């Protein structure tokens, strides 16, 4: 009995002592540089800006952004060539500018070849402008509770939402719309994960090339009934806020929604960076490359807020 006891004890101790962690280095399966495209038409009102970056495999020294030579670039809208501006001062050749017709069902196709790097190609189809209404349910010092309604017969596709308070003066955090200045507000869903914020920091604003743009993407499941409640909270407080609120609803193409989802997953990995991350975190629709060629169309509503209670 004593022998058995000792045997059990030593085996248990051996098991516990041998528990340890061991690290393996994994070499990157990517060995060649490739191109990354970030093109989402319709996220800015006038022109469309997009970027083309050179990616180097992980483990190698990253190259500077302008480290590629263009051999060929073309952008087509329903088969017709669209002019692309490349000479954007010091941003060239990363950022490009073009005028995309904001017409639903237009098919955009882009192909690009840099010297020594595989040619990339991608396409997207511009979605229809969304039709919607916003009701202000309540408004107080803390927040503004709202309801978004989309008519059932118009409820298709994927959506992202932005909301702004009107302000008197122009600042770096403002956007201009309808000749007025607007500051973006935080949006929170009433339910946990129905609306998630994705940081699309790589989109460029023509006047402020390094400006990030965050979208509040509405999870498809949250809009089954065509209604969703949300609340606005001030991101910045100031004395010059007016009682007007601008809501922009974006209808996104499938690939834009998948890409934003993937970006969110990669940026907010709740699974602690283990290899449990779902495969969709690697989404791309760029053949032989990475990134996105997507599109969206926006609708706008301005609401005057009731007196605070």
């Amino acid at each position, binding site marked *: 009995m004593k022998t058995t006891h000792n*045997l*059990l004890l030593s*085996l*248990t101790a*051996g*098991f516990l002592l*041998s*528990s*340890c*962690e*061991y690290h*393996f280095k*994994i070499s*990157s*399966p*990517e060995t060649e540089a*490739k191109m*990354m495209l970030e093109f989402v038409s319709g996220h800015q009102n006038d022109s469309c800006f997009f970027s083309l*970056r*050179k*990616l*180097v*495999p*992980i*483990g190698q020294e*990253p190259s*500077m*952004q302008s480290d590629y030579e263009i051999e060929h670039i073309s952008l087509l809208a329903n088969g017709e060539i669209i002019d692309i501006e490349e000479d954007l001062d010091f941003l060239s050749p990363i950022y490009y500018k073009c005028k995309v017709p904001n017409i639903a069902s237009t098919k955009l196709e882009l192909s690009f070849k840099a010297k020594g790097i595989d040619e990339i190609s991608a396409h997207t189809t511009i979605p229809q402008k969304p039709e919607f209404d916003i009701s202000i349910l309540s408004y107080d010092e803390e927040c503004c509770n709202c309801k978004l309604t989309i008519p059932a017969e118009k409820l298709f596709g994927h959506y992202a939402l932005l909301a702004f308070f009107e302000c008197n003066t122009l600042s770096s955090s403002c956007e201009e719309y309808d000749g007025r200045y607007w500051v973006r507000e935080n949006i929170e869903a*009433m*339910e*946990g*994960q129905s609306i*998630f914020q994705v940081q699309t920091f*790589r989109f460029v604003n023509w006047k402020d090339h390094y400006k990030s743009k965050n979208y509040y993407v509405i*999870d*498809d*499941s949250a809009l089954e009934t065509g209604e969703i409640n949300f609340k606005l909270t001030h991101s910045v407080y100031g004395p010059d806020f007016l009682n007007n609120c601008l809501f922009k609803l974006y209808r996104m193409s*499938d690939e834009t929604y998948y890409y934003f*989802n993937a970006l969110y*997953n*990669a940026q*907010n*990995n*709740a*699974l602690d960076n*283990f*290899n*449990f*991350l*779902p*495969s*969709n*975190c*690697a*989404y*791309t629709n*760029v*053949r032989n490359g*990475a*990134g996105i060629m997507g599109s969206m169309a926006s609708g706008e509503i301005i609401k005057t807020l009731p007196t605070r209670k």
Partner: protein
Amino acid sequence: MNRTFISICLFSAVCTSAAAQRRDSSFVSPTVDTLKAAVVQTGRAKRSARSQTSLTVLDKTLLNKACFTLGSPDLLKTLQLMPGVASGSELMNGLYVRGGDGHDNLFLLDGIPLYQVGHLLGLFSTFNLDIIDDAGFYKGGFPARYGGRLSSVVDVSVRDGNYEKWKGQIAIGLIDGRLQIEGPIVKNKLSLNFSARRTWIDFLKILATPFAADEQSKRTIKGTGYNFYDINLKLTQKIQAGSKLSFSFYNGRDAGKMINLENIDETNFSLNWGNSLCGLKWEKDIIGDDLFLDTDIFYTKYNSDIIIDGFQHLDEENIFKVNEKNKGFNNDYGTTINLYCNLIRFNKIRLGGNYTHHYYNPFRDKTIDGINNSVNLKFNSEEVSIYAEDEVNIGSIASINAGLRYSSYYVEGQEYHYWEPRISARADVSDKLLLKASFSRTSQFSHQIASCNIDFPTNIWMPSTEKIKPMLATQYVAGLKWTMNLNLSVDIELWHKNLNYLYEYTGVNSFLPPINQWEQAFAEGKGRASGVDIGIEYKNNSIFATVYYTLSSSERFFPAIYYDWYADKNDNRHKLNLHCQYKFNRDFDMSASWIIHSGDRFSEASSIAWIYNGVYSTVVYGKPNLYKLPAYHRLDIGFNWHKQLRNKQSRTINLSIYNAYCHLNAVSAHIERKNNKIQAIAQGLIPIIPTVNYIYKF
């Protein structure tokens, strides 16, 4: 590389030692059993297909020696060693058969479906081998009588209790104990076979409590625990000659809890899952062995829950009270009838049908800071299938099993109907060489949904709906079996499988099942897999050795995830398993099993880009599942010392060593930024696990 070399040497040493001992041994066991591929008479009505491809039958003797995990022999761990089967994460009971997913397998216990077959996050399977008679494992060429899953069938039979005398066994291991008892309630009329098993991991924490450094540690130990149990029962009544009524029952449950202490706030997590099933089966000879039928009624239930009760700390000021219950519940009840007819010469005809009512009820109730949000979904569906199967023997040179299965599914006003042709054939070219081929089409109406890249037991089952279609698969198999002599045979099978209407989660990552996102957050895709399975078996009276090798590829295509085909997460290109069982003499035997396979795949950032001239960089994800973990390999060894005691009693002491040379296989991986360089790093966690088990038979 060194570890690989050492492991090969160690395995060779074990085998050489076994062979050397055999020469010295004067005892030759008459009862060493073998894996009987495509063989089969275990029960008159079962697995009699001479033409069957891709079938492995594991009988009781073999199962009890095959693969020990933490002291207990385990069915699924044994099946994981088979060619064409990937096991997924280390220690998990994953069964990814020929490019299939973890939920594509039909597990039958006495003909009744089981939904979840893992205990202790997969360390043990729910099948207690003390009570099991045999198990048939079909990877392809499915006979028409099986349906409802895409990739494999694991058909497990519980043994009838002894009609003559009472006997049983007790087994005590380091972390679990088992009891099995069988005997006649009414001699030669009514028998009982009962087994129960429970872990005592939760008792070990009592030993740990005195070593707790402070009050907080004591609370942590107190609030943390895990246990599982399962109970099997079979009652069999001989009604008259050629007629038998049997009642089967199974109940198993896993319960785990954990506590998280943050200052004075306490958050409790609990994780529970389990199956219950029962069934009544009647077998009746109509005209002797030439015409007989069996019919049964059954009920099976699976439920799981994840409960979180405590506080959510967003920051020092924002602390919310959280109470969240995530529950998955589904049950089936139904009936099956099978008629066997051997009246026509050279023909074995089977006809039958099955009706199953499925009920799915996933539920989430979440309250944060007093604001409640709950989702309670309920689905009822009906599954009806009929089949006909005819096994035709053309003299002794060929046989064909041709069958057709019709499956239909009714859910929420939606109907699905499928015809599933099945055919398998074999031709004896000579006494030593036979050729075989099969074709099968299968459908699956229930989907298990996961929100991350790992199959948790708490992943919920959902029905097909209007938007989510039933999954479909088509498999082709061709092969040969070359029996060189009585001891040595080589079995080779080439296979290809197409999978359609697969669904992959595309929403926000989480460990919790996406209950409210069913239909919306899943993308439709397809899969394809092909490979070659090679099995070499050597057996004599005291030694049984196998070499299994698989060369395969498995890919997925989901347009919502990637524009092209990409590797499946369980795409293990090469898999080799060397297994040896040796009986030295009546009192001592041992087994060793060495496995090596290409690493599992995962998605991680693969490239880096500057966002703004050397100021800010970002990592970019490449193809899904682009990365491969390091090759997996391990050696398991088991020793059994048997001793015959008085009055036909015996005892066995088993020593099992899991991962004998302590190779820490990678279980997870991530990207790390070190010295201004970004690297992918994988972690290994599971070391050598030696266990002892004492078995007393009476």
